[in-house]
């Protein structure tokens, strides 16, 4: 029995009706089309009366298929399907013919627009004729969240979720949580000490009973789908038992390897081989750096188990824990699998610390040319100089510091094309911190533009200029060279149209914020998309700013793009609220527009030939290999299977399949051919 189809043509005010003769489109939809039993036009189909019209006509006319010729399905497909559902129709018998974005907005000419609209409506009518009823897919939800990264974004997100009563697992790859914010001296625009506002949050996280913390750990793999992820975590060998260790500090005090460059201090200070990265570290328990530890070095050289090496066992000897010592040289990486409902990625950024491509700034050769984050450590009370501004080469108090903005940022030739967003503000802050500590010092800043858009931000940088007396020079630096113990900086000031030559004691480069080195690999592990700069992509830049391209995975903080602390915290809160919405349901409903690989009776089982081209093209990692087994357990053939929880219905697999074994629900071959064949070519 053929369907009774209703066609509703929307004027969209004049958006459609100005270039499309809607009455004619409605009339033509009925002609030579016995299936179409009702047609009408309406000013705004998406309005309440418009939806009522749709509902009423479905009932009155006994329609079992509907075509709404209106705007893009991205706008109102949901609206009209819901309306149809209310009228008792399976919503997947409603199709949208896009007359606005794909016709009226792009064609200036009414006859042509009308002709095309008639074709578009006929295509959808043919498709609707072959629509099948579909039902939402229900997936259960594991009520536990995973937060990857323990910087301010991760900490905020984890606390928000845990405070709402859900379990959170936090994975941090460094020995302590805290991230970059723990490294900062003071924060703009209030100049409050970063650690003073950061550490209470770190402690809160450590004490929260809903949060399980894995430091010195990394994500090995993520399988599963929204609501049901299986996450494998690699707990890297710490060589210290976290349960036994009390963090008494005896071990790192006796460690003989004292000259290892501290990563936390951006290589301006030293640490030992067994160490905690900074005094307020959480957990406040050390880790052995196996690359630099004498014992491990020796064991590697002699190719013996570390426990057999006798070179240096000072930390073990001094460890007061009895009877079993907290230090364990034989510890190995451990793998843990956790069931997770939703994931927040908060893996942060990396400062552009390699400036070797900038020969003009010394190419990384000059000790007294440092980066922004290095200056933070110099200015920080917990830093290598205890907050005194000393230049790295000789510890001298710099009388003149030159700051260079946009190093790496806004430089498509050598660095990145984007603006790192925070450098204008942190450079202004640096000039202030410097002037507060060296009152008669001179701070000169080379800049291209000042971008201080934010609450109290403009006032902040003007304060640096007007009250603290920083001198801003609009232009870039062409060269830095050594002259005695000075660094001569050559640059320009375009406001006077002149060249500038400054004999400085120290130069600070406002380095760009870049994606983590392994961001690309990590994104592939999670099957989330990323942009050309390897920052993870949100699914919609305006309306879905924290959702990644994979359902159930959300983004927070600088892994998504450069941002400052307030913005990071806000985004982390947003991501947490999205996770909470997911975890609040026992079951999730998903769109049934998913792909399916056919299954047939024995002896064929499936027409799938197991080439797995589909697996290669699937952007969501939704295709799995499935063994079809005989009763004795032997594998008859391996075929593809679509994980309905992961599939986003993009159809790439269906288009790629060579044996036509994949069908996308709501878009099967029959429907697509019906659409194509309905177009009259002349």
């Amino acid at each position, binding site marked *: 029995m053929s369907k009774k189809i209703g066609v509703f043509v929307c004027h969209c005010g004049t958006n459609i009706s100005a270039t499309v003769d809607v009455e004619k489109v409605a009339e033509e939809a009925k002609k030579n089309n016995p299936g179409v039993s009702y047609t009408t036009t309406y000013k705004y189909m998406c309005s309440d009366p418009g939806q009522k019209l749709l509902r009423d006509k479905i009932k009155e006319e006994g329609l079992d298929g509907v075509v709404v010729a209106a705007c893009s399905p991205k706008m109102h497909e949901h609206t009209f399907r819901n309306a149809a559902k209310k009228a008792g129709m399976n919503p997947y018998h409603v199709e949208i013919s896009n007359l606005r974005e794909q016709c009226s907005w792009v064609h200036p000419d009414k006859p042509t627009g009308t002709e095309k609209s008639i074709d578009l409506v006929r295509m959808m009518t043919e498709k609707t004729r072959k629509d099948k009823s579909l039902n939402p897919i229900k997936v259960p939800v594991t009520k536990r969240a995973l937060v990857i990264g323990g910087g301010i974004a991760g900490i905020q997100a984890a606390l928000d979720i845990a405070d709402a009563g859900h379990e959170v697992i936090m994975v941090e790859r460094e020995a302590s949580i805290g991230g970059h914010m723990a490294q900062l001296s003071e924060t703009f625009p209030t100049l409050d000490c970063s650690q003073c506002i950061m550490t209470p949050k770190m402690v809160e996280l450590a004490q929260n009973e809903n949060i399980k913390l894995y430091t010195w750990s990394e994500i090995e793999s993520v399988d599963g789908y929204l609501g049901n992820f299986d996450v494998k975590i690699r707990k890297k060998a710490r060589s210290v038992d976290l349960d036994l260790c009390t963090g008494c500090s005896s071990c790192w005090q006796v460690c003989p390897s004292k000259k290892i460059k501290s990563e936390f201090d951006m290589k301006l200070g030293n640490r030992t081989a067994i160490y905690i990265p900074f005094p307020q570290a959480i957990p406040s328990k050390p880790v052995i750096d196996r690359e630099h530890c004498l014992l491990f070095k020796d064991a590697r050289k002699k190719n013996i188990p570390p426990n057999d090496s006798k070179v240096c066992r000072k930390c073990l000897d001094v460890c007061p824990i009895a009877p079993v010592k907290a230090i364990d040289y034989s510890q190995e990486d451990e793998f843990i699998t956790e069931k997770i409902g939703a994931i927040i990625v908060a893996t942060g950024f990396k400062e552009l610390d390699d400036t070797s491509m900038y020969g003009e700034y010394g190419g990384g050769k000059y000790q007294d040319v440092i980066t922004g984050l290095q200056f933070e450590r110099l200015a920080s009370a917990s830093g290598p100089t205890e907050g005194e501004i000393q230049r790295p080469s000789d510890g001298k108090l710099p009388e003149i510091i030159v700051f260079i903005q946009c190093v790496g940022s806004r430089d498509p030739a050598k660095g990145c094309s984007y603006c790192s967003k925070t450098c204008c503000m942190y450079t202004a802050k640096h000039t202030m911190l410097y002037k507060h500590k060296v009152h008669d010092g001179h701070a000169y800043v080379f800049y291209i533009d000042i971008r201080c858009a934010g609450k109290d931000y403009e006032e902040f940088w003007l304060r640096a200029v007007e009250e603290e007396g920083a*001198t801003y020079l609009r232009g870039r630096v062409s060269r830095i060279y050594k002259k005695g113990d000075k660094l001569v900086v050559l640059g320009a000031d375009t406001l006077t149209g002149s060249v500038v030559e400054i004999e400085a004691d120290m130069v600070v480069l406002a380095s760009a914020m870049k994606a983590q080195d392994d961001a690309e690999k990590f994104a592939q592990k999670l099957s989330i998309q990323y942009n050309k700069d390897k920052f993870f992509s949100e699914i919609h830049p305006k309306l879905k700013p924290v959702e990644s391209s994979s359902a159930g995975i959300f983004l927070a903080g600088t892994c998504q793009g450069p941002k400052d602390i307030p913005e990071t915290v806000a985004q982390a809160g947003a991501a947490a609220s999205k996770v909470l919405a997911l975890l609040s349901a026992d079951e999730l409903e998903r769109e049934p527009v998913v792909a399916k690989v056919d299954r047939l009776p024995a002896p064929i089982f499936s027409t799938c030939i197991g080439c797995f081209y589909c697996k290669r093209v699937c952007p969501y990692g939704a295709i799995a290999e499935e063994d079809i087994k005989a009763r004795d357990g032997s594998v008859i053939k391996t075929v593809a299977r679509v994980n309905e929880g992961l599939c986003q219905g993009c159809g790439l697999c269906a288009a790629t399949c060579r044996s036509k074994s994949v069908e996308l629900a709501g878009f099967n071959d029959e429907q697509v051919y019906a659409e194509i064949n309905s177009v009259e070519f002349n």
Partner: protein
Amino acid sequence: MKIKITTKELKSDFAKEVKERSGIDVKKCYQCGKCTAGCPVAYEMDYMPNQIIRFVQLGLRREALTSRTIWLCASCITCSTRCPKEVKIAELMDVLREMALEEGVANPMEKNITTFHEAFLNSVKKHGRISEFWMLSEYKRKRPKTALQDIEIGPQLMLKGKLSLTPHDIKGKKSIKRIFEKFK
């Protein structure tokens, strides 16, 4: 003129000195160019008004004090009125003129301008208002090089009654005199 800025200029106290003399804090200027945009004589200037402020900001004393700009400024105060940061630019020009004269580095065009000012004031002092003819003749007598400048428009002005040979004194000449005495 090529300008080079070095540590010496940047560290100099020029801006501080200007502030002490006039109360004008040039650090407040963020170089938006609103002053230049509205300046009615900017087209004749060697440096734009905002550039003059920039010179003071960066300690470029010579460039600021020897510029023509500070002498061309007609003190119409459009710049000061419009400045979003409330920098008194016209008043700054005044201070720079003073400093240029004190240091004897004023631009050569300054001589014409100060002479013109003197002739203007002398005329006001004498008649309580200006007598165009006598003011100009004083100016051209003192600056002979300008004697023939614009001379061709003289007869036209005379025909239109704009350049009267007989000065017209005002009634309150005594009050004017008192003003001059006050500011001797």
